[in-house]
């Protein structure tokens, strides 16, 4: 397994507050890793740094592009996304007033070309591309049982389904890495169990690396191959689920007695 | 086109009444002028009808007015004109007030062969086609800018002996810029400064202050009373006491009210319509009196010009003995020494209204002298 993402001594300061301090981590191809930590530990901030939503104070982020690890420093969010990094958001950010299908199609934007003239004058090839891409989107939606809601507005979906759609939208980008920020938030145990199966399926079927943030330990412990624990911006521990569950420091800072 | 007309002749034939359409700026930026004109038009038509109507080849016909608002917009003006000539089948149009709205109606009225008389469109080219030929259906009752501007230049140089002037012109219509251009061209002295303001501006202190150390002998300020009144006021308050010269847009009793009587001194403007002259001119005197009775205020110039526009149409109908629109157009071209409120009007080959011009002097808010400029 090759390393796909390598983060070295990442630091992010907001004014006087150091939200992320000297964090290093590595992801291998096809790995499923969790990032946990108490509230305000800096997890979402790490995601934002990795996906270029904000830029780091110092440190490097490198990402595999063919044979090399290239630096993502100073790259814009859309450039990083185009390289193959997809994400979901802690507060759902779907394109609310667009259909489920359009949400997915937008994510596929960079996978097809449809010249301006071709589309405004509707050359036959326009319809060909359009049909092709439509089929792809439909197939993907079908895998996640969303094809029946294809023409519904995203905002009209129940909360749990919206979360699922956000994941599908990420997948539609054909990413190499998928970052999931609290995918199970607001779901009941039943739905969480569903989601767990879903994520496992994705990883099997699409062979992508997944990094996820989650407070629901049933999901994390079931899924993750490795876990990073962040606390007050610093890396507190790293290890397999069982190692982490035993770790005193983690129990104290995060899991609590019952954990 | 007008397929229903029985006669072979072009244009709208007269029916039982003579229809006069009004395409006027009743809302929008020029509404103030438009509404003054509407009052003049209304009064003229009321008077005519009270006297039995217009004599068309021996028969008296009443006049009916169709008043439409063009919102001070060119596209609306075109549409209003189309409605007037096609739907309402008017025989003649009075208006619009502004050159911009006026030119917009030309294609439509020309197609329908209905003449229009604008009380106040002052651009020199308003009545002309691109080739320089005259627009057959376009007339006006006012001066064109070049005439007034050059008269003011002569007056400033010769009568006031002003060797250095500052020009402060309204930059939001052709009126101010056109007059300023004509003035600058004809003026023999030195233009010490040249600045612009916009319609609706209220504060001229900055510009006036900048004039202060320019050693000027006079200010030429072509524009309308609402702004020039403020300019006069603010100039005097800033201690600028040189003569202020303007144009007929100032010829309104409101000017002195806005400026304040004590400030409205040493103020001059070119105008056809002088209350001084009015006392000698029977028509004007009657008009002034009637207006005051009806509207309870001094007649503004715009009302006078609009009033004359209606009577010019009446005169044309009487001369031609026909109220068909094409005939009215012909009649208008032949108007000579017509005794209007704003002076003795003669329509020239370019459809401009030639009439004597005077320069009125304001002292303490009152007209104290009227000098005729030849």
């Amino acid at each position: 397994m090759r390393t796909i993402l390598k983060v070295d001594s990442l630091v992010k300061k907001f004014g006087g507050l150091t939200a992320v301090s000297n964090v290093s981590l590595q992801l291998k191809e096809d790995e499923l890793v969790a990032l946990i930590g108490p509230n305000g530990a800096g997890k979402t901030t790490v995601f934002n740094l990795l996906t270029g939503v904000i830029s780091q104070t110092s440190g490097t982020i490198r990402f595999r592009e063919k044979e090399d690890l290239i630096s993502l420093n100073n790259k814009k969010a859309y450039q990083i996304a185009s390289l193959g990094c997809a994400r979901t958001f802690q507060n759902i950010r779907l394109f609310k007033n667009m259909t489920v299908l359009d949400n997915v199609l937008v994510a596929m934007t960079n996978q097809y070309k449809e010249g301006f003239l071709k589309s405004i004058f509707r050359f036959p090839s326009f319809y060909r591309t359009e049909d092709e891409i439509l089929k792809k989107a439909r197939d993907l939606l079908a895998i996640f049982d969303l094809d029946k809601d294809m023409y519904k507005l995203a905002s009209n979906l129940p909360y749990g389904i919206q979360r699922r759609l956000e994941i599908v939208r990420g997948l539609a980008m054909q990413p190499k890495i998928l970052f999931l920020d609290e995918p199970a938030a607001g779901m009941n145990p039943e739905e969480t169990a569903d989601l767990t199966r879903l994520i496992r399926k994705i990883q099997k079927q699409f062979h992508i690396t997944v990094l996820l943030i989650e407070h629901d330990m049933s999901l994390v412990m079931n899924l993750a191959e490795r876990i990073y624990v962040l606390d007050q911006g610093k890396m507190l521990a790293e290890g397999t689920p069982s190692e982490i569950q035993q770790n005193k420091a983690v129990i104290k800072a995060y899991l609590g007695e019952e954990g | 086109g007008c397929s229903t007309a029985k006669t072979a002749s072009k244009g709208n034939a007269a029916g039982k009444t003579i229809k006069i359409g009004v395409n006027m700026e009743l809302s929008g930026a020029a509404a103030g002028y438009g509404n003054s004109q509407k009052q003049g038009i209304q009064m003229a038509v009321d008077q005519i009808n009270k006297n039995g109507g217009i004599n068309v080849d021996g028969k008296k016909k009443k006049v009916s007015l169709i008043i439409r608002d063009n919102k001070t917009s060119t596209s609306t003006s075109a549409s209003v004109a189309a409605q007037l000539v096609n739907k309402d089948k008017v025989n003649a149009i009075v208006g619009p007030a502004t050159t911009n709205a006026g030119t917009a109606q030309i294609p439509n009225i020309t197609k329908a062969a209905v003449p229009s008389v604008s009380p106040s469109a002052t651009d020199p080219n308003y009545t002309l086609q691109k080739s320089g030929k005259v627009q057959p259906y376009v007339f006006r009752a006012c001066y064109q800018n070049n005439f007034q501007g050059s008269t003011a230049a002569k007056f400033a140089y010769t009568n006031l002996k002003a060797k250095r002037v500052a020009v402060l012109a309204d930059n939001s219509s052709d009126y101010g810029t056109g007059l300023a251009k004509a003035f600058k061209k004809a003026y023999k002295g030195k233009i010490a400064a040249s600045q612009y303001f916009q319609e609706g501006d209220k504060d001229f202190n900055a510009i006036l202050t900048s004039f202060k150390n320019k050693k000027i002998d006079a200010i030429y300020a072509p524009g309308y009373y609402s702004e020039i009144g403020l300019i006069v006021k603010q100039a005097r308050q800033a201690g600028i006491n040189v003569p202020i010269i303007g144009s007929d847009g100032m010829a309104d009793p409101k000017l002195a009210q806005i400026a304040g009587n004590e400030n409205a001194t040493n103020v001059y403007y070119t105008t056809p319509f002088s209350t001084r002259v009015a006392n000698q001119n029977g028509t004007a005197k009657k008009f002034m009196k009637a207006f005051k009775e009806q509207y309870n205020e001094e007649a503004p110039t715009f009302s006078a010009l609009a009033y004359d526009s209606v009577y010019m149409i009446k005169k044309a109908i009487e001369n031609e003995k026909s109220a068909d629109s094409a005939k009215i157009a012909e009649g208008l071209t032949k108007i000579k020494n017509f005794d209007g409120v704003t002076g003795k009007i003669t329509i020239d080959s370019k459809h401009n209204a030639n009439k004597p011009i005077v320069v009125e002097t304001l002292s303490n808010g009152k007209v104290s002298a009227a000098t005729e400029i030849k």
Partner: protein
Amino acid sequence: MEVKNLVVNYGVINAIKGVSFEINEGEIVSLIGANGAGKTTILKSISGLLKPTSGSINYLGRDIGKKKAPDIVAAGISHVPEGRHIFPGLSVKENLQMGAFLQKDRQQIKESMEEVYEHFHILKKRENQDAATLSGGEQQMLAIGRALMSKPKLLLLDEPSMGLAPIFINKIFEIVEAIKQQGTTILLIEQNAKKALSISDRGYVLAAGEVKMDGTGAKLLGDPAVQRAYLGG
């Protein structure tokens, strides 16, 4: 408090189809149910954010169904809404002060604030930070803290544990029980039904806008149907 035949519509959507339940003074009552069952809608109706279509909400003998939100707050009902709704752009401290908007006694406001900081140490640390930039969990704590600032007699909690770390979830439930000890009545919505029911005196199970079942917390916890549907097997 007593809610009778509550019906709430969103335009043409009939979200709550005649729900009745009651809360006795000093109790913790849980509402549980799947996503979209209508739990949030009921809470919003009680706190005056939504106008019920019909039915009555009786609080200490007064019908508050038609009252506006501020009057309801004044009557001692405080709501921690879903989605937090903290004041972005105001600092943590200002947010808490806003929570005591209807409170007059400055000394008491100060004490309440100390109490909130006691519960949530991290808020004290972030005291002057713009609330918009707090982490998800911190915002949740702030929302609860703000509701406590008004010294409510009845506290409505909409999924207070959402987005909180496990250690804080336990903490939240401890706090809820502590508040109850101080004499505050609590109406609780939770996805974490097991935990919620275990601290509740009574609970109601909601599905598709109707009450499907009710009973003491323990009874519902023991009910096989409830276990299957809401407790994750």
